[in-house]
C-alpha cells in the first residue's frame, strides 16, 4: 500500500485527517486483511463482516507454534492492509514472513493492553509448596510465585481499563486523557493507540513493538524466563501468549481489532463498531455462563492436567491449576522426570481428570491417565479452532465447549 505508507510518512496531521474523513479509495472494495491464526481470524471476521477480505494463515486445527509459512501466505501478507497478530511471541515465524513479503501495512498486536501472565504463574500458585515436597528438584518454573500479588492488582486495574474502552471511539480525547495516569507500558501504548493522538508517530512505535514480539522465537526455555518474572511488562519473552483463554482478554482483543479495522477503513467504522457492540454483548453473555460453570467446580477438584500448558489465563481467572507434562510449547519433548513428577502430582493431589488438547499428540497423556486411573475428561481447544462442523467452530463455541468439558468432568 504505497499510498498508505506515503500518508503515514508525510505528516501526522494528514494521517489524523484520513481517520476523520472517509477515504473514497477503500469505500467499496473489501479491505484485504490477514490474521495469524484461527481464533483472531474468527474475531476479525465477526467485526469486519463483508467489509474485509480475510486470510487466516494458520487455519482450524493447525498448531500455530510450529507453522511453516507457504508462498500463498507470503502473497496474502504482501497484499494485506492490516495484519492482526497475537503478539507475546506467539507467532515466532511472523517476523521472517513479514520481512520476506515486504509487508507495508499496519500490524495490530491484539494483545495490546492485556495484562500478560508470566510463565508459571498460571499454574496454581497455591500448590507450589506441595511441589517442593515431592523431592523432585526440577520445578524451576514454579519459583516465581512471589509476584503473583502484583498480577492481581494489575488484573483489577485491567478490568477498570476495559470498562473505559466501552466508550471507545466516541469520545477519543477524554478517553485518552483518562488513561494518561497509567504508568504501565502496555497501558500507555494502548491508550494512545485508541486515543489516536499523534497517529503518525504512534504508528511507527507500534510497528517496532510488533517486531520486538516476533524477534524472540524461543518458546522452549521458559525456565529461564521465569527468572525475569518480576520485570512484568518489560521482558516480553516471559509471558504466556495464550491470552485469549480469558474472555476478559478477548474483549481487549476485540477492541484492538475494531480500532485497527476502523483505522484501515474509516468509511465503515460505524459498521465495525456496531458489529463490535453485538459481539461484546455475546462475549459478556458467554462470560457469565462460563463464570457460573467454573464457580460450580468444587474446591477439591481444581487441579487439572492437560497436554499443553496453555491455560494460564483461564486458570488465573477461575482459580484452576493446570499442570502439563510438556511445558509451554508443543515443540519440546517430555523427559521421564517431567512425566514422573506429573504422575506423582496426580496421585498425591488426587487430580480427578486429564484433558487432551486438540492439535497435540495424545499418546503420552493417555499413558499417564492409564497409570494414575485419572479419568480422561475430554478434548480442550487451545490454540486453534476446530473445523466448521467441530465443537469449537468459533471463539465463542470454543470457550463454551472448554468450560462445559471442564465442568462436566469436574463438576460432580
Amino acid at each position, binding site marked *: 500500500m504505497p499510498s498508505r505508507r506515503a500518508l503515514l510518512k508525510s505528516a501526522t496531521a494528514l494521517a489524523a485527517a484520513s481517520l476523520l474523513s472517509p477515504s473514497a479509495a477503500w469505500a467499496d472494495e473489501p479491505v484485504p486483511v490477514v490474521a495469524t491464526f484461527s481464533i483472531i481470524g474468527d474475531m476479525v471476521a465477526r467485526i469486519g463482516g463483508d467489509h474485509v477480505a480475510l486470510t487466516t494463515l494458520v487455519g482450524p486445527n493447525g498448531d500455530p507454534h510450529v507453522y*511453516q509459512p507457504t508462498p500463498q501466505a507470503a502473497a496474502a501478507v504482501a497484499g494485506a492492509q492490516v495484519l492482526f497478530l497475537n503478539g507475546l511471541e506467539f507467532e515466532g515465524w511472523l517476523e521472517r514472513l513479514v520481512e520476506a513479503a515486504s509487508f507495508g501495512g499496519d500490524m495490530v498486536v491484539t494483545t495490546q493492553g492485556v495484562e500478560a501472565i508470566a510463565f508459571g504463574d498460571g499454574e496454581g500458585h497455591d500448590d507450589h509448596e506441595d511441589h517442593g515436597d515431592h523431592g523432585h528438584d526440577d520445578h524451576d518454573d514454579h519459583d516465581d510465585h512471589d509476584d503473583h500479588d502484583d498480577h492481581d492488582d494489575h488484573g483489577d486495574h485491567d478490568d477498570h481499563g476495559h470498562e473505559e474502552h466501552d466508550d471507545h471511539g466516541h469520545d477519543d480525547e477524554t478517553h485518552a486523557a483518562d488513561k494518561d495516569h497509567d504508568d504501565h507500558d502496555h497501558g500507555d501504548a494502548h491508550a494512545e493507540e485508541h486515543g489516536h493522538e499523534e497517529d503518525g508517530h504512534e504508528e511507527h512505535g507500534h510497528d517496532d513493538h510488533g517486531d520486538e514480539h516476533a524477534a524472540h522465537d524461543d518458546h522452549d526455555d521458559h525456565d529461564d524466563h521465569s527468572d525475569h518474572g518480576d520485570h512484568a511488562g518489560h521482558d516480553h519473552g516471559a509471558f504466556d501468549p495464550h491470552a485469549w483463554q480469558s474472555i476478559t482478554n478477548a474483549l481487549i482483543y476485540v477492541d484492538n481489532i475494531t480500532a485497527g479495522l476502523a483505522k484501515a477503513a474509516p468509511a465503515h467504522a460505524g459498521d465495525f463498531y456496531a458489529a463490535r457492540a453485538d459481539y461484546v454483548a455475546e462475549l459478556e453473555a458467554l462470560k457469565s455462563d462460563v463464570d457460573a460453570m467454573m464457580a460450580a467446580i468444587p474446591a477439591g477438584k481444581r487441579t487439572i492436567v492437560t497436554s499443553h500448558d496453555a491455560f494460564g489465563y483461564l486458570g488465573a481467572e477461575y482459580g484452576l491449576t493446570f499442570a502439563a507434562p510438556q511445558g509451554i510449547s508443543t515443540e519440546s*519433548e517430555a*523427559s*521421564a522426570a517431567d512425566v*514422573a513428577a506429573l504422575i506423582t502430582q496426580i496421585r498425591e493431589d488426587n487430580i480427578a481428570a486429564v484433558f487432551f488438547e486438540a*492439535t497435540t*499428540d495424545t*499418546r503420552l497423556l493417555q499413558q499417564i491417565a*492409564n497409570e494414575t486411573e485419572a479419568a480422561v475428561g475430554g478434548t480442550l481447544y487451545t490454540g486453534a479452532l476446530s473445523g466448521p462442523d467441530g465443537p469449537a467452530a468459533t471463539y465463542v463455541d470454543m470457550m463454551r465447549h472448554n468450560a462445559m468439558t471442564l465442568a462436566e468432568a469436574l463438576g460432580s
Partner: protein
Amino acid sequence: MIWDSIFAPFADFGFMRRALLGCVAIALGSTPVGVFLMLRRMSLTGDAMAHAILPGAAVGFLISGLSLGAMTIGGLIAGMVVAVASGVVARVTTLKEDASLAAFYLISLALGVLIVSTRGSNVDLMHVLFGTVLALDNDALTLLCGIASLSLITLAVIFRPLVLECADPQFLRSVSKLSAVTHFVFLALVVMNLVAGFHALGTLMAVGIMILPAAAARFWTRGIGGLLIAAVVVAIVSSVAGLLLSYHYSLPSGPAIILVAGVLYALSVCFGPAGGLISQALPRRHFET
C-alpha cells in the same frame, strides 16, 4: 541409595517399566540386524531406510490419524518398496546397490514431503514422527515384542547363508540360489525393525539403537556370536542408563538413550581390545607358533 537411583524409578512408575520393555525389545530385535548391516558395510543403509520409512508413516498418519496400524503398515510398505526396488535395480542393471538405494529413498522422501505438504499439516507431524518411548501403550508394546521375536527367529533361520553373504557373497552366489532370497529377507528385517523402533524412538533415533551398539561391539570381539551378544548388551545398557538419565536429570528420553550408546561407542573406540586406539598403540606381540 542404589535402590533409589536405579531401581525405584522402575518400581514406582509403570511408564518407566514400559519404556524399558520397549527398549529391550528393540535391543533384541534391531541390534543384531545392525551387526549384520555393519559386517556387510551397509551401516548407512539403515539411515537411508529410515528416511524411506518416514513418508510412508506420514501418509498412514494423514489417512487415519494416530493409528498404530496405519502408520506401521504405511512405513512397512514404503520401506519394502524402496528396499525391493533398489535391490532389483542393483541386481538387474549396472547401477550399484548404494546408488540405487540412494535414488529410491530420496524419491520416497520427496514424495512423502509432497503428500504431507499438500494435505496441510494438522498436528505437528514431526512431533508424531519422532515418537516417544515414554508413551508406549499396550498395542505398541505388543507390536515391538512381536517384531523383535519375528526378527530373532528369522535371523536364526537365515543365519548361515547371511554370514556367508557377509564374508564372501561371490561364493554364496556360486554354490546356492539362496543368495538373493537371503538378501531380500535381510532387507525386510531392516525395514521391520526400523518401523518398530520408530514407534518408540522415532525414525532417526531408531537407526541409532541399531547401528551404534554394533559399532561399539566391534571393538570388543571379532567372532560373530560374541559380536551379537556384545551389541545387545551395549544396547540394553544404553537403554537403562538413558532412561535413568532422563528420569534423574530431566532429559528427553530418546536422545538420552542414543547419546549413552554414543558414549559407549566412544569408550570402545579408545579402550576396546579388538582394534581400539590404545590396543593398536601398544607394541604388538610377535607371532608365536
